[in-house]
């Protein structure tokens, strides 16, 4: 059995700095809000003399332009999931060690990659683009790897003898044994792990509590260590804290582009498309704004989503500065290849559904419609607009009776007729709708006025004339 442990001490800081992309920024520290101590710090902050666990007052005195960000456990957790997602491409068994570590079972992967060094090379290449600080170590048991990585051993080896020797030399303070138990052990002269492992488990169980025995058993690999492995998620969900507060909606394009790239990778690996993205903008002093951006056809390409989102961003009005965004996919579907004709010389680059999505993003969904026919004799009910998807079904599943001589435009509602017209055709009597609240009794005529415009007029039961349509 061989295990690899990756320890990430600076996850929240790394998540923030990855947005900076090499730009110069002020010294940055992450502050634990309960103890008011610094828990993570950037290289620039370290250069000014700030150290870990330093109080905020001292740190602020050392660096004038110090930027302080509170520690949010959720960001670390999200980032850890993100790393696991990347590593899953090369490793099948990954487990989370809260809050800052990942455990990989690697002995079963070695057959695929040949030997340990080439496998480690693959892992290193995968981690490189994430720009993370990390410590690593292999171990003969999960806990051994854990202790060595946290210690910063940074060695990859499958020499069990070497691993056992190194773990034996570890001090008690480097293990996860409770401080109280550590003190008890010190008093009886146990100083490092080697001393501890010399004592038999039976003797130890008599004098110390059972959790120590369990811990040691797992450390030496004699007891089984139950581990729950990671399964990649079905739905893409990403929360991103911005490096700076943004109050101009156009500046949101940059960070959104980042997330969309990750989304593209996510969907591409699963060979899936998504038809909608749910984007949330968290505002500093107001409720968050939630958006749904739709694409009728389903897309995975970041560039396509970017174009749709850019149109919507033009209309975004922010009440106060945005400090974080999150992006979630709606339903995903398996991608099916386009069955376009290779030889028909097609010009232009969009498909029909892509065009509809683009127009809907600009005009709003209710402004992009398709005409449809309902099975009704009343002209205003028969002719209606529906969204393209609905109209397709409506028109598909029935073939209504069509009336001859209908105008091209309808006035809604019909207007009283105020001009002198000459009636040329008619009447056509409609007496229907008595079963619902909008009955219609009308005699329709085709008429034209003195300018030569063709009107569709009707006379109601009380003798008043209305203009209902125009033959354009």
């Amino acid at each position, binding site marked *: 059995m061989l295990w690899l442990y990756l320890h990430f001490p600076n996850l929240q800081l790394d998540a923030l700095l990855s947005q900076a992309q090499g730009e110069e920024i002020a010294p940055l520290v992450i502050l634990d809000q309960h103890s008011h101590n610094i828990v993570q710090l950037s290289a620039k902050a370290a250069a000014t003399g700030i150290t870990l666990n330093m109080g905020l007052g001292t740190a602020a005195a050392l660096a004038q332009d110090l930027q302080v960000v509170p520690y949010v456990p959720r960001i670390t957790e999200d980032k850890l999931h993100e790393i696991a997602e990347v590593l899953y491409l090369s490793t099948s068994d990954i487990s989370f060690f809260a809050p800052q570590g990942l455990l990989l079972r690697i002995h079963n992967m070695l057959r695929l990659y040949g030997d340990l060094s080439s496998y480690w090379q693959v892992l290193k290449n995968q981690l490189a683009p994430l720009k993370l600080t990390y410590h690593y170590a292999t171990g003969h048991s999960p806990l051994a790897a854990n202790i060595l990585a946290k210690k910063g051993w940074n060695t990859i080896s499958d020499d069990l003898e070497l691993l056992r020797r190194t773990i034996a030399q570890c001090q008690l303070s480097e293990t996860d044994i409770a401080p109280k138990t550590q003190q008890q052990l010190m008093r009886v002269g146990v100083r490092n792990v080697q001393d501890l492992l010399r004592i038999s488990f039976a003797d130890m169980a008599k004098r110390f509590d059972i959790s120590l025995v369990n811990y040691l058993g797992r450390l030496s690999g004699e007891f089984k260590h139950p581990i729950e492995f990671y399964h990649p998620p079905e739905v893409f969900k990403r929360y991103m804290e911005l490096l700076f507060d943004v109050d101009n909606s156009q500046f949101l394009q940059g960070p959104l582009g980042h997330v969309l790239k990750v989304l593209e990778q996510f969907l591409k690996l699963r060979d899936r498309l998504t038809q909608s993205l749910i984007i949330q903008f968290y505002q500093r002093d107001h409720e968050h704004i939630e958006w749904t951006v739709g694409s009728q056809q389903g897309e995975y390409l970041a560039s396509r989503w970017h174009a749709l989102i850019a149109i919507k961003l033009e209309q975004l009005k922010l009440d106060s500065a945005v400090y974080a965004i999150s992006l979630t996919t709606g339903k995903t579907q398996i991608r099916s290849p386009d069955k376009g004709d290779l030889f028909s010389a*097609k*010009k*232009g*680059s*969009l*498909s*029909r559904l892509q*065009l*509809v999505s*683009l*127009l809907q993003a*600009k*005009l709003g969904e209710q*402004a*992009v*419609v*398709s*005409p*449809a*026919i309902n099975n009704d004799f009343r*002209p205003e009910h*028969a*002719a*209606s*607009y529906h969204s*393209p998807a609905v*109209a*397709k079904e409506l*028109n*598909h599943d029935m073939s209504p009776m*069509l*009336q001859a*001589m*209908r*105008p*091209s*435009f*309808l*006035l*809604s509602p019909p207007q009283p*007729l105020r001009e*002198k*017209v*000459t*009636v*040329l*055709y*008619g009447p056509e009597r409609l007496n229907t709708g008595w079963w619902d609240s909008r009955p219609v009794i009308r005699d329709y005529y*085709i*008429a*034209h006025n003195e*300018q*030569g*415009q*063709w*009107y569709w007029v009707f006379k109601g039961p009380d003798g008043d*004339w209305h203009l209902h349509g*125009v*033959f*354009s």
Partner: protein
Amino acid sequence: MNPILEHLKNKNLIWQANHTSQMACANSTGFRELDTHLQGGFPQSGVMDIDSPIGIGELRLLLPDLLTRQQNGDRLLVFIAPPMHINSEMLAEFGFELQRVLVLQAASSKQALWCAEQCLASGCCYGVVLWQQDIAVNQVKRLQLAADKGDALLTLLRQQKQVHMALPVSLALRLRALPQGLHIEVTKRKGGWPSAAFTVNMGDSWPELNSLPMADNILHFPARHYQTA
């Protein structure tokens, strides 16, 4: 050849009479008189500017051509910013497949132009009909480029109030109502000579919308003609 002439010709600044053959690809409009005067029919792609009051038959003049184009492919027809509710019964009765018709209700003329450009350039629309009163030369040029890119025909329907500037369109028509149909004047045709005004008889395809006196041998129902105020 004279070097100056050659230079001008290379820069495409000289129009030559033998260029007219480029206009060969045209579609029949469905009206014989119009076909003759346009030497074949409406252009395959580009921008067409029609100056007409609403309700005299301007849309009916376009429909046969738009229908043939719809039947020849699987692309979309888009109506942008129509002045009133477009009657789907009329479209269906005329033979249009309604799934492949889109109506866009733009809030402003700027939005309408944006939509027209996107639809034209997308390559999935064969025709766009746009109701737009005012349009500038540079906007027409953009639309023209988009129409050529997407192989689509944009028809601009508007009623001009004053004498207009010449727009860089492929074809410009002026329509006026007549009892038997439409009086048409071709005000501009790319690569062609202006022709005399002519009349299109719409009575053949729309017999009811024809106010010429009926033939004598038709027996009228007694109360055929109504006069109303």
